[in-house]
């Protein structure tokens, strides 16, 4: 019997033992943050992750429609995109889609990187650069948030879910102050440029350009002007001679001399592989004729992109162009390859033009990069800052740089008010469809006026718009989840 008892104990004892140890989870499929950030490559990969959210924001149709539709430059007739344009949004239907949550997802990742990479045992220079990239991106995401919502919850430490879940909104001035801090530090740490493999990363110029812009938004004209000048003086950037080249997919337009920071997309047209794409081309193309490869009556050859023509230029934009403005036929679409279109969205309305098309796209997928900061922006910041400071000649000088490239005559002396109007118009034309107009109008206090000025193209929006629409409502769901959040006035 003893033998059996022994056998029994043996079998019974084989596996039982070391209980607590056995229950510890030792995950081998994924990496915990505590086990990461041990070398330069890992830290770089964590920074790459923060860039990823740029696709989710800039590549999403909702972003285009909440920045450009509902302004004085474009309108839509597409039923699915009407809400922002018609100013019928409310806290139950904000019309802003996932911008709020995507930006905070990126901020959360940036906060972790700043906290962890700062402590990582890696090359000091690399560490400085990576933290600088993270801070630049964090600043950009907060900039986007403040432009849509004004006061937003501000947090910069690594996530403590319970604490951050209860965070109230921070006043806009404090958020801007943090943005300025981040950008200033980033500008210190970031290099002027990168080697070929890293093209697309945030540079010193990008940090300074964005910083100048934030100062401009703060109406801190001196700092805006000083910072913008640093970009100019860096000698890194210049205007391309031809406005069309800035957007020409076939002309290796990506990351050109004029580009300061752009969101990188990629589609391998040769093998028709979509790597990172967006649908902007489909949204801005002239309408494709049913069952044909023609668009608005013109044959684009092998061009097989979907043309939904969701976004269309307002008559006001069309009329903004001075005669001979080289940008007109790039921003607006009147024809292709010498052949004029035969159909139009509305009487006297052209389509959006080649600036937005992508001849290498397929169906809805375009690999075209989207600009965040162009050198033109810096020049126009200088023009605006000098003008607001009362330094008209300096202002005109920088504005004329932009006009020259558009083959327009140089402006002569102007009143401050007149020059302000010129700058506003110039920004409208130059950045049409580049996700700037709404933010500009809001900071100028001209959103309501602008929307009412295009009542013919957007009658409902013109009727509905009120001053409180400067900011979007915070989603009611977010307020339920965090009762400390207060709603923007008016909603």
């Amino acid at each position, binding site marked *: 019997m003893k033998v059996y008892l022994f056998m029994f104990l043996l079998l019974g004892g084989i596996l039982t033992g070391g209980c607590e140890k056995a229950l510890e989870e030792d995950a081998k499929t994924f990496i915990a943050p505590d086990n990461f950030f041990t070398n330069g490559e890992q830290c770089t990969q964590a920074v790459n992750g923060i860039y990823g959210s740029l696709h989710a924001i800039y590549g999403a149709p909702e972003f285009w429609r909440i920045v450009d539709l509902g302004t004085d430059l474009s309108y839509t007739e597409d039923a699915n995109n009407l809400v922002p344009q018609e100013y019928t949004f409310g806290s139950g239907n904000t019309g802003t889609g996932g911008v709020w949550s995507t930006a905070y997802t990126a901020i959360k990742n940036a906060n972790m990187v700043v906290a962890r990479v700062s402590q990582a045992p890696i090359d000091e220079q690399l560490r400085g650069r990576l933290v600088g990239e993270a801070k630049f991106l964090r600043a950009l995401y907060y900039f986007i948030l403040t432009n849509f919502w004004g006061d937003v919850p501000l947090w910069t430490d690594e996530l403590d879910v319970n604490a951050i879940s209860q965070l109230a909104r921070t006043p806009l001035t404090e958020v801007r102050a943090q943005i300025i801090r981040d950008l200033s530090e980033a500008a210190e740490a970031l290099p002027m440029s990168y080697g070929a493999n890293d093209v697309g990363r945030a540079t010193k110029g990008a940090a300074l350009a964005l910083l100048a812009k934030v100062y401009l938004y703060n109406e801190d004209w001196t700092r805006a002007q000083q910072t913008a000048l640093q970009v100019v003086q860096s000698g890194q950037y210049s205007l391309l001679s031809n406005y069309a080249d800035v957007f020409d997919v076939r002309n290796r337009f990506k990351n050109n001399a004029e580009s300061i920071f752009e969101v990188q997309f990629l589609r391998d047209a040769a093998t028709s592989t979509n790597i990172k794409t967006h649908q902007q081309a489909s949204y801005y193309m002239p309408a494709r004729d049913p069952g044909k490869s023609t668009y608005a009556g013109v044959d684009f050859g092998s061009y097989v992109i979907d043309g939904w023509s969701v976004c269309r230029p307002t008559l006001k934009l069309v009329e903004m162009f001075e005669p001979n403005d080289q940008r007109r036929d790039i921003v607006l679409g009147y024809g292709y390859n010498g052949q004029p279109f035969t159909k139009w969205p509305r009487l006297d309305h052209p389509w959006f033009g080649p600036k937005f098309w992508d001849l290498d796209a397929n169906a809805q997928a375009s690999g075209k990069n989207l600009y965040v900061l162009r050198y033109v922006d810096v020049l126009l910041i200088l023009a605006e800052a000098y003008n607001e400071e009362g330094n008209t000649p300096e202002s005109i000088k920088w504005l004329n740089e932009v006009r020259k490239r558009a083959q327009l005559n140089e402006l002569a002396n102007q009143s401050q008010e007149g020059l302000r109007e010129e700058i506003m118009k110039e920004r409208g034309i130059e950045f049409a469809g580049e996700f700037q107009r709404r933010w500009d109008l809001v900071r100028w206090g001209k959103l309501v006026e602008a929307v009412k000025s295009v009542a013919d193209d957007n009658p409902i929006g013109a009727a509905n718009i009120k001053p409180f629409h400067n900011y979007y409502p915070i989603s009611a769901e977010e307020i339920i989840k965090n009762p400390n*959040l207060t709603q923007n006035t008016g909603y």
Partner: protein
Amino acid sequence: MNVKDLLFCTGRSCHISRSQMYAIYASNLLQRRRCLCQNLLVMKLTTLFIVLTMVQVNAKSFAQKVTLSEKNSSLESIFDKISTQTGYDFLFIRKTLQKTTPVSIEVKNADLKEVLQKIFDGQPLQYSMEDQSIVVTRKELSPLLSGVTTSSTQQRSSIKGTVVDTAGKPLEGVIIQLNESQSARSAVTDGQGLFRFDDLQNNTTYKLNFRLIGYIPHSEEVLTNQGTTRSVRISLRLQQTTLDEVVLIGYGTSKRKDLTGSVSTISTEKLENLPATRIDQMLQGRAAGVYVKSTNGAPGSPTTIRVRGSRSISATNEPIYVIDGIVDPSGTNLNSINPADIESIDILKDASTTAIYGSRAANGVVLVTTKKGKVGRNDVRFSTNQGMSQLAKRPEMMNAREFAEFINEARIFGKQPALYPNVDSVTNIIGEEGTDWVDAVTRNAPFSSYDLSASGGTGGDRGYTYYLSGNVLNQQGIIENTDFERYQGRLNFTKNLSSKVNLGLNLNISRENKKLSSMNLGSNTGWSSSYVFLAPTIPIYKPDGTYETFNPIWYTGGHIDNPVAIVNKITNKQRANNIIGNFYLEYEPISGLKLKSSLGINFINQRADYYSPSDMPSKIYNKVMYGSASSDVYNTSSLINENTANYTRSFGNHHLDFLLGTSYQTRDIDRLYASGARLTNDITQYNNLGITEQENRGIASNLDENTIISFLGRINYDYENRYYFTFTGRRDGASNFAAGKKWGFFPSGAVKWRISNESFFVNSKIRNAISDLSLRISYGLSGNQGIANYQSLASLSANSNAYIFGGTQVLGYTQGNVGNDGLTWETTSQLDAGLDFEFFNGRANFTADYYRMVSKDLLLTVQIPSQTGYGSRIVNLGKSLNEGFDFSVNGDVIRNDNFTWNALINVSTNRQEVTDIGPLSRVSLDAGIGYGVLTSYLEKGVPIGANYGVEYAGTWKSQEEIDAELSKPNGERMWVSTANLYRPGGPRYVDYNRDGALNAMDYHYLAPANPKLFGGFGSTFTYKRATLDFFFQFSQGHKMFNAMEFFAGMGSSLTNQYKYMVDRWSVNNPSSDIPAVESRDNIPGDRLLHDASILRLKSAQLSYNLKGLLLKKTIKDMKVFVSGTNLFLLTKYNGFDPEVNSGGSSSTIIATDNGNYPNSRTVTFGLNMTF
């Protein structure tokens, strides 16, 4: 042997009237009056013992206290008194009492055993207690008892015979009563089932009554021969007495009469010969409180099971399976188990029974026990089942003409030219009906199954039993190129090493091959090539014989792979090798103490292969002729070690049963995946992915590990079989919770009062009708840990395509899972109160249970503020409630020698609601329908995953009506539409919140997704050799969206339409409430929400027993049968079948039909034989 003279005398033998006491009763008949017999019965005591052993089951219990005051009384008179007081019968041969000494005894309220000890002290007798009888014998066997004395006269005739059971096994101890003109004689069968009556009159008809406890009494008239022996063979059928049924309760067994908890037992006998590939498919409607629904109709598809409702939101709601002691939490092994190998299925439902499985038991436990060999038998069994499956029901779609007219109207509405300007020219080519895509890809599919098994064993200290079986099954799917194949073998072996030690092995090895459909089955997002949605005007083949690719209604026209091309050309198959084994050693060092240690393994080796060849029609059209392939390999290995000590002991009227044990289970799953695109040949497919160019390769791998450690215990106590108490506890540690939160304790308790054993009940007349009555109450906790591993840990997630630098994609890491240091068990407390009735000595029984379950600390993916960078995280928060009743009735309505009718019915109710889901009072759930259609949600106060949407209010009849409605102020408007559908014929909906706009705020609770009432009923009729069995299953009170109608019932010009759309609104049909062309609005209106109630003839079987008709010597038993499943369905649902779920076994997506493999009807015929 003849029972010439009977034996005995006793106090209350006259009281013995229960069926189980036939043996004694039969003997008693001979005496007419007790104590009349003076002559000795001559029979083997061993036989008597066997009879008595049979007798003891299902005993009554009487007061066991004795008070005596006797001086020099005879034993016989003392027996009489004890018998009166205790209800125990004394069984003895009068002669044995000779030479016994008179007894003097003085006891008051003494224990019976003590009293007996005193009485027998010094007597030349021994006694044994057999439940309610005390058998008294000589200390040494009297030679008188062992012999047979007959004075046979050869001149007269004899009857001899064999009594066997339905399986042909000889029955020992059958009492045969033979009535003669003046008297009666009895005989008892021996170990070979033989009996004999001699000295009978020639050429006379005798009526023989055969009785054996547990079997249905049988009588047979036999005509004797002239001076010779007449031979007969009789078979007795088992009587179903559920009270004696052994019920598995987890780490042990219980008799149903002693059961304190709520357990549904499913008799596999009635499931035999049905064409099922998996046992869970046959459980539908069989057990009260257990709702079983198939998720789709593909061969070998799993079901989803809800035991007493659903309680979890983010964790699983599926019960755990325990197959021969191996815990299989997700039921992944059910495809490997041959239903024919299964002996019994017990479903543990209340907290008292489930608590022994602790943390995983809140959703119920399904215990599956496979067959073991039986000592003394040596059976070889062969069975086969051959048949056909066919599509049982299909949606009614438009034919070619109707569709052509519809699409023309839609095109003209869209200011485009008609697609078919001349409808007749279309129908002239393709026919009025056009292409029936459903018909084109479905078929009558063969079903075939073969089983061969051998079982048997020998008893004794060195004995063994074995059960060996093999199964080959092939079920072709009703969709072309789909099937399920199983090759399986099993060995169940037990071996005694000594009287105290035995060991055993259960081993199941199988290989399953599955071919899956790659065709779109009707999902909204697959409208361009689905067999439901494709236009009937498109031919399958072009005139040149190649597949037609042009779909004229794909927007403005495009090229697709049509369903016929897909089913024929794409390879999508899975194969799995599965080993489940459990080895155990059992040791009984002292009487009553059993130590058991087991080691179980489960290895699953699974591989899924996919290949799309280069010559897919759309690839040919697009001139990108490359193949694409992938292979996905999963390896699961699970180990389980369990050690238990079980001690059973009786102290007088107290019966105690202790169980203590430990369990350790670990399970890991690793995966390796590879894919390759742009393959330039069609030969190597997924077998050589290395020949793909670097940039077209895809790889993935991962590892998932889980460990659970448990300590468990149970005490069962009962007093006089009247008062029962059970306490169960299990302490579980699970690796998938946060450090410090891994352990949970799950206690439960139950009490049972067996009212029928109370003296007031025993003595009342109601006892004649109600033979058993018990009241049970249990309460306890059980847990749920059914969430993925590693959820408490913070993680980084990698994305190889995070961003683009320098024109190349780069790897990036972002925060993945948000850690949760507090993640722990979800706990369900359950109250159960039940009543068990047995009527007419087991002829019928009735069980009713009420339950109420409160689940708290739900593992809930709760919505958190997006400002954290996360939208949700899994936490322990939330509550849900379930309550309901389970009823089941089973009984023999008619029980004659030639005809029996057994009927059973079970009905269950369930009411369920979410009582807390965190900060958001309402969370919409994406049911995967696409296009932003949300049809289910969570909200406080409504059931989990309830259907929601808006009420359909018909169509706008005219522009005037619309203008009038729109001119009303917001608060007064009744009807709203989506912006573009304010037009005549446009669908309109009730403006629920009266804000003048149709938006998500108007969505509200419409109907539950799980039934309020469900169950099944069936009957078995046996007439002589024929048996007819049928079973219906029903569910009622739930609804489901037919997601296919979001396109096909809304006039979308992108798809074919339901036939009812012929009556759509149009200028010619302006009164119609069916929307006009181009009315697709992606709004979940209740027009598309259908009653999902069903009444289904789930199974039916007609069999004929050929036993004894063919090859009597070799074939012990033989049956031929015709059987079928899903034979008839009554439902209002307009899709294929409401018993599907696109969400599979999802906890929250419960009733969605977004294109599912349809259920089939299967009819088979076959035979089974036992040699």
